[in-house]
């Protein structure tokens, strides 16, 4: 007995043909290219709020920071629900995953019903998205809480040299920091040049992630400022002449210190996680971070040594801000704006700045707030590890334009010998 009546054979053929035809049709359908720049269709805040009611906003964000996850789930999401918006956090390994999703949807001609409504983003990913026209723009002036933000703050006006242009709303500020184990480092250096000297006199106890890692690359730029005699001497706009004139000293300084680094500079940690792990394991005595907010928890839960402190660097360090961006094809742009506005409220920024909650530095212009609001920030518990933003951001260095970054990284790759 067989299960093959002739009719099923014919059905199979029909099915196969239909499938092929459908596939061809699908491949031919819709080749709409994304527009150069999408701008918000809304003209007043009330219509945004009424449009947002009942929407579910998908916030795609890096999910490797437990405190960040619980801030969004336990503080921001309930507050959004009170305003009629459901906030759904999508945990991702890398912000690039969100950008790739948006770019794929745009490539497929899905320009109005995208699955990403809000992305926690800055720097390189923001620039890539801007170049591809992937962000909704000119919507941040609509947000009532933008009044809490300084209009002239250079950190918020341009994101690593890319003009923000109302395409993303401020979320946090961050300051490049060097953490060290104060039990071991008896004589903490107070300049970037001092860090390199300390590394040279303590062989094997310092290293940095190999660029193009985000943090490793920031450290190399920090050294570039140092060998150039301060950030004032490095033009923010990239030019080949400035590069040729300024970088030989940078690579000489880094080559000179290389033999004294961890494993004699034969190899470097591939990313900041590996660097942090080396520090956690006591194999090195200093670690680098562009997000000092997480240090408090890492010390409290014993991942990092209890004596971890943040170096005070006389010439200041790089500062940046991170943002919430809405993709050009977001299905729930109005809801996303409500969440972005909420995130800029004093209550949310205070809650997020609490070191026991997350400890992210506020993006608000605290000096311009009412005395009662200022007091809320002043009343926050002080982290035992991380100094306040005022201390940490003293003499803050501006970031170089985004074009500098790949050039400096490539120079490092070709001029610093590794085995």
């Amino acid at each position, binding site marked *: 007995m067989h299960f093959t009546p002739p009719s099923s054979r014919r059905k199979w053929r029909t099915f196969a043909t239909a499938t092929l035809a459908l596939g061809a049709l699908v491949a031919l359908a819709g080749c709409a290219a994304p527009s150069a720049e999408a701008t918000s269709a809304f003209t007043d805040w009330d219509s945004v709020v009424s449009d947002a009611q009942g929407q579910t906003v998908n916030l795609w964000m890096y999910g*490797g920071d437990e405190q960040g996850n619980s801030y969004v789930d336990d503080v921001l999401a309930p507050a959004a629900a009170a305003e009629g918006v459901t906030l759904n956090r999508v945990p991702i390994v890398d912000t690039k995953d969100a950008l790739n999703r948006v770019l794929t949807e745009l*490539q497929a001609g899905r320009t109005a019903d995208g699955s990403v409504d809000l992305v926690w983003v800055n720097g390189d990913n923001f620039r890539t998205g801007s170049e591809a026209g992937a962000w909704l723009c000119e919507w941040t002036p609509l947000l009532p809480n933008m009044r809490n933000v300084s209009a002239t703050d250079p950190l918020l006006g341009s994101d690593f040299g890319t003009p923000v242009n109302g395409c993303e709303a401020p979320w946090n500020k961050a300051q490049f920091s060097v953490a060290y184990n104060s039990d071991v480092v008896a004589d903490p250096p107070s300049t970037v040049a001092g860090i390199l000297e300390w590394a040279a006199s303590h062989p094997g106890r310092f290293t940095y992630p190999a660029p193009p890692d985000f943090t490793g690359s920031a450290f190399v730029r920090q050294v570039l400022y140092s060998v150039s005699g301060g950030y004032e001497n490095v033009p923010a706009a990239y030019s080949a002449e400035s590069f040729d004139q300024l970088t030989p000293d940078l690579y000489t300084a880094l080559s000179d210190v290389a033999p004294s680094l961890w494993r004699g500079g034969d190899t470097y940690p591939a990313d900041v996680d590996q660097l942090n792990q080396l520090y956690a394991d006591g194999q090195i005595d200093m670690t680098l971070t562009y997000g000092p907010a997480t240090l408090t928890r890492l010390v409290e839960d014993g991942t990092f040594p209890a004596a971890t402190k943040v170096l005070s660097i006389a010439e200041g360090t790089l500062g940046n801000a991170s943002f919430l961006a809405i993709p050009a094809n977001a299905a729930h742009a109005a809801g996303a704006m409500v969440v972005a506005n909420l995130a800029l409220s004093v209550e949310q920024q205070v809650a997020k700045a609490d070191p026991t909650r997350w400890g992210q530095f506020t993006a608000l212009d605290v000096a311009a707030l009412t005395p009662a609001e200022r007091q809320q920030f002043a009343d926050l518990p002080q982290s035992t590890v991380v100094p306040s933003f005022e201390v940490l951001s003293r003499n803050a260095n501006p970031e170089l334009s985004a074009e500098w970054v790949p050039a400096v990284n490539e120079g490092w790759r070709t001029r610093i010998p590794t085995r």
Partner: protein
Amino acid sequence: MLAVLLIVWFALPLVPLALWAFADRWSFPSAIPTVWGVDGLDAAIAAGGPAASGRSFLLGLTVALIATPIGALAARGLVAGWAPLPKILPVLLFAPVAIPPFAAVLGTNVLLLRAHVPPMLGLVVVLVAAAVPYTTFMLRTAYAAHDVGFEEEARTLGASAGQVLWRVHLPLMAPALARAAFLAFLVGWSDYLVTLIVGGGQFVTLPMITASLAAGIGNDSVVAVLSLTAVLPPLILLVLLARTGSHRRP
């Protein structure tokens, strides 16, 4: 001796995982956790572990329920010789495994988006396509060894086609079908790439929260708990399968 070595080989990587799962603190260079506790478990629950595991289980089950009958049909057709294009069909069926998943998934996703296929449907379709090679090739071997004589005998004795399928064919094939379904279940249960890219973040599964937490520092204990959660259900299913399989084999 070989069995013991094999067990050690498979169990060894799980030892640090099991230790980390109950380590509230494990500071270098201590060989064992310095503070024991269930912080990792609490964090796994806070991160949405139970709901994500439920979704992964549902996804695995759905993929198994669809890919197993398709695999059975394809295997039966290939063995009996009534499948079209007998030379090319096995190659086509195996293609999803042979093509690098990242390239295949990214390309397929553009196609699915263009065709306005809902993300959940697309997710199931792509995972079923990825699971069918396993079910087909597993069942092809089983059907090659299957004696249709039993079914012909039943028909001769007056059983209807439906009765033959339910009372003769399926009981005889059950162990092989269960093994194939297990493989298909694993495809859905453990998938990360397709769930993220095709699923479009609508369906947050266990591998997704595990991977995102593993990307950060200081999460070793929660990642260990989530990883053990990912290992245990397949292990339990495997043991059950081994037992029922040996009982039912005629």
